[in-house]
Structure formats: structure tokens, C-alpha cells
């Protein structure tokens, strides 16, 4: 029984069957990659996991509880954090404030009318945010406006924000899309380090095969809204069905 169980999920947009009978099980404490050509339904699947979309049929269970019908913030409070394709951070706020917000969300829940005490007087939250920034090598930039950081640093900050909530499942949507090679490798190293240091399950949607094969322990290949195969990276590499999905049927392998 995996930490995330997706059963018979279907999602249709008008005439387009975006997801057809998707079954997926992500085991706890693994790095599981979901790959597939453009339009395979990767993002639709991800949106069904975080509450942005509701599947037409099927079930999505996280740690034995259904996530269907819950709002994104409720699913997040259950322990699923999401990293976006383009880093979603609080651009107008400082890096430190960016870090404080998830720390408050973790401690105080979805809403708290904490309107009189100052932020700086919340020592426990402040220390935690400081620690997290040092761990992620962002402490020197804490006074900067988040929007003025480099793309790589924004990604690093976004991941740090997600980690400070101590999620059990971290979802990454093409975390290296649009990055230079050096930034991509930094992100890979960062994710490897995170995996080593924490008990965390990571699900990653990715185009870049270099990233996928450097990180993943299991890989699911999605094509036309349906899982094609699920296996270890070594077996996926030479799998004829995968090549077919990516390169087209007429190609002889």
C-alpha cells in the first residue's frame, strides 16, 4: 500500500479524454517520476492530486484518506506540498517573509487571527525559518525581495518553503523547466540531498530525461492519458513501448 493511491481516475475535458483509467501507486520514501510526451496528461493528473481539478470518476487516497473534494489548502495541510513549473513565491515580500509564511501555516493552520503580536516576537517560528534558510544557503539573501532573485534561487526558495511545512509527499512539476544546465544540476543535487536527509516521498513530473534518470527510483510512463508501463529506471530505458510512445510507431528500434 503506497502513501498515494490513485485508482481508476478518469478526467474528460469536452471531447478530450485527458485521463483514462489511471492507476498509480507511489510507495513511501521513494522518488517516483511520471514521464510522458506532451499532452500525455501529466499535469492533469497532478492537478487532480492537489485539489485543483476533481476527477470525473475514480479515487485518490493519500495516507488512507481521500483527497477528492478537498480544497488545495486542505490537501496541503494533510501533508502534500507542491512545487510549480515556474516558481510560485511571494515576489513582493522578502525572502525571510517568504520563509516565515509556511512556518506560520504549519504551526497555526489554515487561518489564525494573529493580529496584535509582532512577527519578530514569534521566536520559535523565526528560528525555524532562519534555520531553513541557512540549510538551503539562502540566509545571506534574507533581506532581498524574492522577485529580484535568480531563477535558480527562486526554485530553491520555493522548495525550502515546501519543506518547512514538513510534507510527507512533495510534488514537483517540471522543476528544471527553462533552466540552464548548471541550475538544473544544482536542483538535482538539492533534491538528492533532501531525499538523503529526510523521510519524504517525492513525486516528480519531468520532461528532461537527464533529471529523471538521475533521481527516480520508479518511473511511470504516461501516454494519451493512460499509464503505459511502470518500472525501475534501468528497465524503462530500453523498453520498446516507451520508445514507441516518445518517437512514434513508424520508428524502428
Amino acid at each position, binding site marked *: 500500500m503506497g502513501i498515494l493511491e490513485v485508482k481508476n481516475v478518469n478526467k474528460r475535458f469536452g471531447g478530450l479524454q485527458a485521463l483514462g483509467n489511471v492507476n498509480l501507486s507511489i510507495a513511501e520514501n521513494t522518488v517516483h517520476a511520471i514521464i510522458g510526451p506532451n499532452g500525455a496528461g501529466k499535469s492533469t493528473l497532478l492537478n487532480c492530486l*492537489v485539489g485543483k481539478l476533481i476527477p470525473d470518476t475514480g479515487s485518490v487516497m493519500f495516507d488512507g484518506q481521500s483527497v477528492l473534494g478537498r*480544497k*488545495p*489548502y486542505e490537501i*496541503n*495541510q494533510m501533508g502534500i*506540498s*507542491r512545487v*510549480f513549473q515556474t516558481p*510560485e*513565491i*511571494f*515576489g*513582493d*515580500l522578502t525572502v525571510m*517573509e517568504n520563509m*516565515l*509564511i*509556511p512556518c*506560520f*501555516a*504549519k504551526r*497555526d*493552520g*489554515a*487561518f*489564525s*487571527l*494573529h*493580529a*496584535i*503580536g*509582532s*512577527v*519578530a*516576537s*514569534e521566536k520559535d*517560528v523565526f528560528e525555524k525559518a532562519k534555520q531553513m534558510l541557512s540549510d538551503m544557503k539562502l540566509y545571506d539573501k534574507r533581506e532581498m525581495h524574492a522577485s529580484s532573485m535568480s531563477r535558480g534561487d527562486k526554485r530553491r526558495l520555493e522548495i525550502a*518553503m515546501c519543506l518547512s*511545512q514538513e510534507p510527507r509527499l512533495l510534488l514537483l512539476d517540471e522543476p528544471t523547466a527553462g533552466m540552464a544546465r548548471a541550475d538544473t544540476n544544482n536542483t538535482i543535487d538539492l533534491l538528492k540531498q533532501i531525499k538523503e536527509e529526510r523521510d519524504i516521498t517525492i513525486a516528480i513530473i519531468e520532461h528532461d530525461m537527464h533529471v529523471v534518470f538521475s533521481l527516480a527510483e520508479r518511473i511511470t510512463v504516461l501516454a494519451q492519458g493512460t499509464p503505459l508501463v511502470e518500472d525501475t529506471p534501468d528497465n524503462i530505458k530500453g523498453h520498446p513501448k516507451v520508445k514507441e510512445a516518445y518517437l512514434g510507431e513508424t520508428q524502428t528500434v
Partner: protein
Amino acid sequence: MLGLTKRDFGLMVVVAILALAAPFILNPFPQGSAMAQFNAGYPDLMQRLVIFGILAIGFNILFGLTGYLSFGHAAFLGVGSYAAIWMMKLLTMNVIPAIIVSVLVAGLFSLVVGWISLRRSGIYFSILTLAFAQMSYALAYSVLTPITGGETGLQPKTSDPRILDGALPAGQSPSANLFGFNMSDTSVLRLGDWSFNFNTGYYLAAVIMLIVFYLSIRIFRSPFGMMLRAVKSNQQRMNYTGLNSKPYTLAAFVISGMYAGLAGGLLVAMDTQVGAERMFWTASGEIVLMTILGGAGTLIGPVLGAGFIKYMENIVSKINKTVLEQWFAFLPDGIEDLLITLVYPFVGKGWHLTLGLLFMLVVIFLPGGLVEGGQRIGKLFRRKKTDTTTKTPPAE
């Protein structure tokens, strides 16, 4: 001090000094001089300056922090005013119950309006709040006449029940007071040609303004205030960070509605009458202007903006043709007439034109409002100082 950082405490002290010394600061010109025209230290205007300051401080908690632009805040001001006048008619002419009830009623009303309007964001939210305010205005003006007095409005009458007050002596009309201190009492201090007015009502309003200004600093610096800025910055990230943005925006909306209700209650405490026109949409627009002109999202900006607009409204609008003729009397006839023709559209009834031009200039060149202007001037001086210090060493 007071749970504030040094900088915020400094700001608080400056505002306190300005508010308490306003009768001096606003009357810098001797009476009878040509410049006495620009004196703003009379009770009625001073009261309005701080009361609209309160209104703008509250509006800024919503608009400055969350970015939700309400175009209906005059409705809360109006509802607060009606609640206050009813307290004066039914309970007592003491302003305390009137002020407390105006805050509570405006809070409840803003809870309902906010609950519905906050289903949408951006322009749709603004339109919803505008619709609510215009509905309130229309209701107050016609359908709800038994409660609001319709076109004529409401004022305390000798025949009102006022169950907490004793019967008025014959021939005396009811006047708002704070435990016997009459709101309209003014003592005048004369120093040579200068005269300064100390008005009970003004000082009550100023003290309340200082209290709510202090509260707004605390809100700005609190985790709650930070979450409100997060709403403005990126709601998507907020929702995916386990935070429910709706109660945050609703709480901000209700708090700013209560500030508006307080301002409405104080308006009644100072001048015991209410008419529906204070809920008209132009009144809501004026609140937006004040906040943006002063600097949305800054602590002191809205107060400056409110003061600036109320000053213009009351001072520039009083400059008429005769005053202009006095000013330019020393010039040759032809030039005098020309100058009067040129300046006249911008003063008196044309003060809106001046305000509009200033507003355009501020929005184009100082998007951060008057506060940004102040900061730029401050920077200019600091740069000059560092320039001189770097230049001096070679001379030694």
C-alpha cells in the same frame, strides 16, 4: 516601546505630536493677514482631518495590504453614522454609546457585504462593493425613510426619548457631549495677532485616531498583516501553502469596515446630523483617492492623503474671485485680469480640477504617493550629505 520597533515608535510619536499640536500647526498665519485664508485650524476642519484620517487608515488595511480595492467604503461610514444618531435619539447624547455601536453595526454590515463580495476578486470585487454601496445609498434615500429620514436625514430632536438622559431644560436643544464636556466647546488662545482654537470634539477624535493608528501599526507588523500581504502577492502560492485566503481577506474587510463605522460615528459625534449623501459613490471614490494619493500600503500615507484632500476641499475651494483680485491687485490691470482668468478655474468651485491634476501627477511620477515623494526628498538630502563628506577629505 509599546511593542513597536524603534522606527515605528518614532513614527507614532511624530503623529501624536502633529495631532495634539494641530491647533498651532494648522494656524500659522496671523488673523487678518492676507495669508489667513490658508489657516486650517478651525474646529470643523480639524475634526474632519482626523476623522477622514481614521477612515483612510482603515481602508488601507484592506487595500494597502491585500490589494482588494473596495469601492463601497462610504456605505460603512454611512451605516456607522445612522447607528450613532439612533443611539443619540434613543439612549443618550453622550458620544460613547454612539461611537461603540457605530463600530459594531458597521462591522456586522461589512461582514455581510464582505462575505458576498469576496467571492470574486479584482475588478469584479470592486464592482460588487460599489453595487452594495449604491444600494445602501438608494435605500437610505428612499425606501428606508422611516429609519434614515430619507432626503432630510436625521438629527436629534428635543422630543426624542433618550432614556438615559434627564429631561432637557426648557428651550435648550440636545448637544453631543462626553460626560458633560460639550463636543462643540472651543477655547480660543490669543497670542498677539494669532489665535488658536482648542476644541473638545477635535481632541476626542484625535485621541481615538492615535489609538486606531497604533492598532494599525500592530496589525501591519503582525503575522496576520504578513498573511494579508501574502494575499496581495500570490494567492496561488498561499492556497498551496495550506492557508485559506478567504477568512484573511474577510477579516481585513471587516476590520476596515469597522474603522469606517468608527469614522461615521465620530462625524455624528462632532456634527449631530446624517444624510444619505455621505454614502454616495463619490464619497467612496474619495476614500480611494486619499489612500492612493498618500501612499497605499504605507502606515502614514493614508493619513497624509486624507489631510491633503480635506485641506484642499475646505481651503482652496474658499478662494473666490474677490480673493484673487486682492492677491493680484499690485499688478498692472491687464496682467491682473489675465492672471485671474488663468488661476480662477483652479480655485473656488474648480478645486476638483486642481485635485485631479495633482492626483494625476502623483500617480504618474510618484506611484508610491506622497510618502514616496517624502522618501525621495529624504534620499536627495542624504546623498548630498554623503557627497560632501566624500569631497571634504582631500581638502584637509
